[in-house]
C-alpha cells in the first residue's frame, strides 16, 4: 500500500519537476528573446523548417479534410434539406477548429520531432556543453529562434490550411455533388466573421509556442545516449499533441464564447 502511495508521490514530483522546468525554460526564453544580439539568420532557418517545409503535408491534410468534411456534411444535411449550408459548415469548422488543430498536430509530428531529435543529439554529443564553453547561451542560440518561428509560422500555415480546406470543400460540393458554386461561396463568405478567422489564428499562435517550447525542452534535457534521443523525440510529439488537444478546449472556451 505504502508502495503505491510512494509511486504516486514520485509521479507527482516528477510531473511537477518537469512542469517547473518547462516554465523556467519559457521564462529564460522570454528573457533571451528581449536581449540582443538577435539570431535572425537562425530564426529564418527555423521558419523554413517549421513553416515552409511543413506546408506540403499541411496542405494535403487540409484539402482532404475539407473534402471529407463537405462529403459528410452534404450527405447529412441533404436529409433535412439544408444542403446549401455545407459551405458555411466547412468554412466555420476549418477556420475555428480544424485549421489550427490539424496544422498544430502535423507540425508537432514533423517539426517538433525533428527539433527534439536535433537538440537531443546535440545534448548527448555534448555540443550544447561546447556552446556554453564558447560563452554562447544555448537558450538564445537554439531555443529562441525555434520559439519565435513557432509563434509566427503556425498561424501562417494555418491560414493557408483554412483557405485550402475551404477550397477542398468547394471541389466536393460543386464538383462532385453539382450544387451551385455561387451558393457555396455566398454561404461561406456571408456567415464567416473576422472573429472566426482571427481567433483561429490566435489559437495557432499558442500551439506554435507550445510545440516549440515542449520539443525544445525535451531535446534540451535529453540524457542517456541514442536511446535517450529516441525517448525525447517520442515524448516531444506525445506531449505537444496532448498539449494542443487539451489547450484547444480551453482556448476555444475563452476565445469563442
Amino acid at each position: 500500500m505504502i508502495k503505491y502511495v510512494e509511486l504516486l508521490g514520485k509521479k507527482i514530483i516528477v510531473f511537477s519537476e518537469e512542469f517547473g522546468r518547462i516554465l523556467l525554460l519559457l521564462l529564460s526564453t522570454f528573457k533571451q528573446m528581449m536581449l540582443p544580439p538577435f539570431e535572425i539568420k537562425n530564426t529564418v532557418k527555423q521558419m523554413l523548417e517549421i513553416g515552409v517545409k511543413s506546408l506540403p503535408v499541411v496542405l494535403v491534410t487540409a484539402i482532404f479534410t475539407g473534402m471529407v468534411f463537405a462529403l459528410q456534411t452534404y450527405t447529412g444535411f441533404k436529409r433535412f434539406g439544408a444542403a446549401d449550408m455545407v459551405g458555411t459548415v466547412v468554412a466555420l469548422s476549418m477556420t475555428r477548429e480544424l485549421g489550427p488543430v490539424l496544422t498544430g498536430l502535423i507540425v508537432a509530428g514533423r517539426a517538433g520531432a525533428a527539433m527534439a531529435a536535433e537538440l537531443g543529439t546535440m545534448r548527448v554529443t555534448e555540443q550544447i556543453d561546447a556552446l556554453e564553453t564558447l560563452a554562447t547561451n544555448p537558450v538564445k542560440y537554439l531555443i529562441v529562434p525555434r520559439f519565435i518561428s513557432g509563434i509566427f509560422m503556425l498561424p501562417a500555415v494555418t491560414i493557408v490550411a483554412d483557405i485550402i480546406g475551404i477550397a477542398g470543400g468547394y471541389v466536393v460540393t460543386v464538383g462532385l455533388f453539382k450544387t451551385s458554386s455561387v451558393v457555396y461561396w455566398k454561404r461561406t463568405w456571408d456567415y464567416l466573421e473576422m472573429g472566426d478567422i482571427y481567433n483561429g489564428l490566435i489559437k495557432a499562435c499558442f500551439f506554435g509556442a507550445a510545440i516549440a517550447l515542449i520539443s525544445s525542452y525535451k531535446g534540451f534535457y535529453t540524457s542517456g545516449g541514442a536511446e535517450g534521443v529516441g525517448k525525447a523525440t517520442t515524448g516531444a510529439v506525445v506531449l505537444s499533441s496532448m498539449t494542443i488537444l487539451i489547450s484547444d478546449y480551453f482556448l476555444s472556451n475563452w476565445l469563442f464564447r
Partner: protein
Amino acid sequence: MKEFSTELKVGFFALIVLAILTFMTFKVGGLEWAKAKGYTLHAYFSNTAGLDEKTRVRIAGVDAGIVDSVRLSDGRAKVTLIMDPEVKIYRNATASIKASGLLGDKYLAISTGTPDAGLLKDGDTINNVAELVDFDALAKNLSAVSEKFTILAKSVNDVIGTDEAKDSLRQTIVNLREITSDLRQTISVNDYKLRNALDNISDLTASMSSLIEDNREPITSTIANMKEFTGTLKTNGPELVENLNSATRELKAMVEENRPVVKSAVTSMDKIVKQIDRGEGSLGKFVKDDRLYESINQAAEGVNRTISAVDRFRTFLTFQAEYLTKPEDSKGAFYLTLQPRPDKYYILGVVSDPVGSIKTKETLTTPPGTLVTEETYKDRVEFTAQFAKRFGNAAVRIGLTENTFGIGGDYFFNDDRGRITADAWDFSNDERHSKNPHVKVGVEHFIFRKIFLSAGADNIFNSKWRGGYVGMGVRFEDEDIKYLFSTLPRIPTK
C-alpha cells in the same frame, strides 16, 4: 538551376500568407461595408422569434437589404432595416418574419406594396406587420377548446346515454331514412325539370347580381333621388304641371315669333366659324398661325435663361488683412468678386496701402550740418479692378491692381481651399524707391469654411521694400448682392 535561399523561401511564403489573409478579410469584411449603403426603414414586431442582426431582407425571395439592428422599444421589438437604394418600397408594404429551411434560417420578407400608396423614405416605418404565429399561444387556445369539447361530449352522453333515448334515436333515424328515400324518388322522377328550373334561377340571379353589383351606386342614388322626387311631386305636383304647361306655351310662341332672327344668327355664326377655320381675319390668324406659339415659347426660354444665369451668378465678399514685414505695417483690403460663370469672374477691390504716399522731409542738422532725410508714409486708398478667367485649377487675372496696370495668376488646390497666387503690377515703377515692378507671391489656405490664412513674399524685386507677409481674411458668398445685380439691366449671357 540555382538553389533558392532560405530567406527567399520564407519571404515568398510570408507574401502568400499575407495575400490570403487580405483576401479573406475583404471577403468576410465585405458585408459590413455594405452596411453604409442604402436607406433605413423600421418595423415593429411583438415577436421577432430570434431574428438576428445582419439577417437578410428579401422581396419575392430576392435579397434586397439586411437587418441592421433589433432593439427593444416599449416591450416590442424595433427592427431597423437597411434597404438597397434601388429597391422601392411603398406605404402599404407588409413585413413578416419567415424561416427558410428546417434549420430555421430566419429572414425578413417584405412585399413592396403598390405605388399609389406613396413611397417610403429613409427613416420611415413599415406599418403593416404580419406577426409570427406563436405556437405556445396556439397550443394554449387549443387546449382550452378541447376542454370545452370534453364537457360537450359528456353532456351529449348524459342525454342519449339511456336505453330509452337510444330507442327513440334509432326510431328517428329509421324515419329519416324513409323520408330521404322518398325524397330521392321524387327527385329522380322530376330530375330534368328540377335541373332546368335550377339552371334558370341560377342564370337569373347571376345576371341580376352582376347588374346590381355594377350599378350599385347609381341604383342607390337613383332610389334616393326617386324617393325625394316623388315626395316633392306629391306636394307640388299639380302646380308644377300647370307651370310646365304655361312655360311650353310661352316658349312655343316665342320661337314662332323669332324664327327668322334665329335663322340668320345661326347662318352668320356658321360663316364666322368657317372663316376662323380657314385662318382668315385676326381671330383666324391667331388660332391658326404657329408664330404666336413660337414667340411665346421663345419668350419663356429667354426668361428661363435669365433666371438660370442669375442662379449661376455668384458673388463673394472678401475682407483681408496682411501684415508686411517691410514697412512693418498692415494692409487691409476688401474685394467683391462677381462670378457670372464658374470660369469667369470680375474682382473689384479697395486696398488701403500703407506706403501709399510718401512725404520726404530733409532737414539740415545743426551742427555739424549733415543732411538728414526723413520720410513719412501715409496710408492711401487704392483700387483694384480685374478680370479673371479660370482654366481648370489655374486662373489668370488682368486689369487694375492697386491703381496701376497689373497681371496675376492663381493656382487652386485641395478643392479650391488653397490657392497659390502671384501678382505683378506697377510696371512703370511709380512707387517710391522702386526700380522694378511690384511682384507679390503667396499662398492662401482656408482653415475654416470662410476664414483663410495667407503668407508669402512681397515686392520681391525691390530691395528696399522686399519682405514677407502674413495675413488672414474672411471670404464668403453673398446671395443678396447677385439679386441686386439681376434687377439692373440684363447680365450678358451666352
